[in-house]
């Protein structure tokens, strides 16, 4: 995620987080913008399984399948997002790229504690953008850096959020 200081209208320094918002089916997801290495059209990606860009190989990631989301990845707005966490890379197919957004960290909300299972690994939090609920993806999970069965227990996750919030503020 990109974090940078920004001055609001009152001249106060506020911490902002930058995300690329994408759509898959009826859901909107936010990818921390610092890891985005490129956005390709269907023509640019071709029919190859993996995408090579600037000497790096991006293996395809079927995010819709991993999240059990119904998505139509054949429309004209379909894009492939090349993403790198520094440790892992992936080419993530999405139905639509909505755009880049900058939001104040205080506007990042934790996933409600009632969500108790694997989704706590999938999402780092959520935010509201243009009246839409946007789920913040945990790219370490998306790119397979987390083992599938190792969900963070809710209470531990809450403690981590509290500890993180106390030190840096916000849920993202």
């Amino acid at each position, binding site marked *: 995620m990109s974090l940078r200081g920004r001055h609001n209208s009152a001249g106060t320094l506020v911490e902002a987080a930058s995300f690329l918002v994408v759509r898959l089916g009826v859901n909107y997801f936010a990818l921390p913008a610092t890891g985005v290495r490129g956005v390709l059209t269907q023509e640019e990606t071709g029919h190859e399984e993996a995408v090579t860009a600037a000497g790096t190989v991006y293996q395809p990631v079927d995010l819709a399948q991993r999240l059990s989301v119904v998505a139509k990845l054949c429309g004209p707005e379909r894009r492939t997002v090349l993403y790198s966490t520094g440790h892992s890379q992936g080419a993530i197919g999405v139905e639509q790229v909505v755009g880049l957004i900058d939001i104040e960290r205080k506007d990042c909300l934790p996933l409600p504690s009632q*969500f*108790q299972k694997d989704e706590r690994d999938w999402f780092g939090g959520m935010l509201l953008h243009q009246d839409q609920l946007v789920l913040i993806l945990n790219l370490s999970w998306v790119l397979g850096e987390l083992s599938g069965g190792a969900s963070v227990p809710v209470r531990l996750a809450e403690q981590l959020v509290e500890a993180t919030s106390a030190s840096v503020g916000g849920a993202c």
Partner: protein
Amino acid sequence: MLRAARGQHQALRAKRLWNVVVFSVGGVKLAARTEDVEGVSSWAETIPVPSRTPFVQAMLKRDNHVMPVYDLAARLNRVVQGEPLLCLVARHLDGPMAICIDAAMPSLQAVNPASIRPNSSGDIESLGLVTIGAQDVAIVALQRLGR
């Protein structure tokens, strides 16, 4: 003095009564303690959220707030009835949680705790069973629903 004592006795009795909201889900009559209910309003379209938590697979947006939705009807293997459906906001221990209930307007009842019997069915988190209008009604423990 006698009148004052009787007044105190009545006040104590009233204090001991449980106030419950009686509502229905798929035609099943249920109750919840009023202090566990934040409010009842009209139901709104929900936003599905990828989730593996049983019965927690959506969120409800109201103004600038979102809250998780607990699908109590699915839990009870029922389908909510009537139009327009209503939204009961539960004061869950983890925060407010929306529950879709039947269109039938909920009512308020005062229940004597001494009349509450244990609910042995175990199909839902409950504080016990109470008879309301010749019908056994489970008092749902909204605070710990799904925990």
